[in-house]
């Protein structure tokens, strides 16, 4: 069932200067990897379009959203306080397949957002994360992620944990990953493509969640279209989760 809520922010947690979590009441239960469209509700239409935001967590009828301030829209939302009204519509998009025995979730920057709920919902024997951040003070939600899986953190500048990005970490540990592992990823395109390259000789399933500017988020505007294997796909409707192998087709090269 879908929803189109005009609802107050009931909780707000600022993690660092450009990351924060807001919470709203939402009785519908999302699937792993789905997202909502959110906007501040006011007399003005600025910014004009709503913003796609993943489900970071959902429990007891509450939807948690982890947001990074990138531009105008996310900045506007970051200035809102508890009690301010926002419009939340959803749940949109396809879900991460989370029935694999072993899960390896790889996230880059704000890409970590959909991985928490996905890992929580998964019934797996082994859940492992590789989460990449720019530097030490960008690392967030360590307790939360380590509580639900083995957490490996990378920092580009090496000021803490593994020096390098998630793909470097993956390449160095490829041997320990058996073919039963399913990889779920979200982050910059180069990271997802890098994962595919790393899996060249491997039979490992890898599903990635794509990011793009969106008009409607619900399959009506055709603004989020990409070509996959020669045919038209809508990131908001046929995705955002795609089979990375077909999408990047790096493995056959």
């Amino acid at each position, binding site marked *: *069932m*879908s929803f*189109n809520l005009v609802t107050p922010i009931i909780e707000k947690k600022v993690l660092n200067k450009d990351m924060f979590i807001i919470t709203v009441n939402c009785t519908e239960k999302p699937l792993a990897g789905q997202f909502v469209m959110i*906007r501040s509700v006011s007399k*003005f*239409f*600025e*910014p*004009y*379009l*709503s913003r796609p935001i993943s489900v970071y967590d959902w429990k007891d009828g509450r939807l948690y959203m982890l947001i990074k301030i990138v531009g105008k829209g996310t900045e506007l939302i970051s200035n809102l306080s508890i009690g301010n009204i926002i*419009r939340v*519509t959803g749940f949109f998009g396809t879900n991460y397949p989370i029935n694999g025995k072993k899960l390896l979730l790889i996230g880059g920057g704000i890409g970590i957002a959909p991985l928490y709920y996905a890992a929580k919902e998964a019934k797996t024997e082994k859940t492992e994360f590789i989460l990449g951040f720019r530097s030490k003070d960008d690392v967030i939600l360590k307790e939360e992620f380590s509580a639900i899986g083995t957490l490996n953190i990378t920092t580009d500048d090496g000021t803490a944990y593994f020096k390098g990005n998630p793909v470097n970490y993956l390449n160095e540990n490829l041997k320990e990953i058996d073919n039963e592992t399913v990889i779920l990823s979200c982050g910059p395109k180069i990271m997802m493509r890098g994962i595919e390259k790393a899996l060249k000789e491997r039979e490992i399933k890898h599903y990635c969640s794509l990011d*793009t*500017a*969106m*008009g*409607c988020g*619900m*399959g*009506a*505007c*055709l*603004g*989020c*279209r*990409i070509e996959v294997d020669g045919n*038209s796909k809508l990131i908001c409707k046929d995705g955002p989760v795609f089979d990375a192998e077909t999408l990047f087709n790096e493995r056959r090269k």
Partner: protein
Amino acid sequence: MNTSVKIGNTEFTNPILTASGTFGYGKEFAPFMNLDAIGGFCTKGISINPRKGNPEPRICETSSGMLNSIGLENCGSAHFLETILPEIAGYKTRIIVNMYAQSVEEFKTLTEILDAEKRIDCYELNLSCPNVKSGGISFGTDPKIVEEVTSTVRKTTDKTVIVKLSPNVTDITIPAKAAENGGADAVSLINTLAGLEVDVKKKQFALGNIIGGLSGAAIKPVALKLVWQTAKAVKIPVIGMGGISKLDDVLSFLMVGAAAIQIGAANFINPSISEELAVELKSYLQSENKTLQDITGILL
């Protein structure tokens, strides 16, 4: 409170319609609203054969609006008739099929393909698309072609024929009168304003197709002026659109002479806005103790 509007041989329960390309094929909005609460909706522009549309990026946000260069991607007439129409045939709301073609013959063929379908109430001819025959300048700019396309479709169908006009012309009343002379039951305006945006960081155009169509609250004053001008120039009903996002906008278009209105990009902001505005219009008329005809065209 009777809010019905008759255009051609189609009776709309109320004047609130939704605009082509912003309402998919209707079913995408069914989870969010009661499709029968609005007078009718326009489908995505349908062409004889499926179209891939333009390269990405295809949408870009602007101040109080958005640019799109979708390029009329659509499933084509066959798929529409076989798969999509059956899914929406059950609704009572009026179905307006927006037609996209690149020559007079194509418009005729497309009409013939669709015409057998009882459940299609009206056609909306998108004349702001490039006319490949005359070097891509849009149909809407040459009154002779507007009249020819209109009368050709007029002769091919008994359904209600609406001609949609582009605002990117010096005098919109010329194509409007040409559509009237061609036998159109109504004209609908405005389609998007041609525009482009630059991604300064990447030193590139924001849209893959460079030029896109501007929609949203930003273009409302331009749309209101052109609707007012056209409503004074033709006798057939005028369907107004362009930046409608709240009740005052609906009332403004009705007051300058629109018999009905279409909501476009605002559907992306709030997927149930069209139903909400239909309800708000009824309670406004009730509270003012006025009928729709009492406020339509009072500023003409």
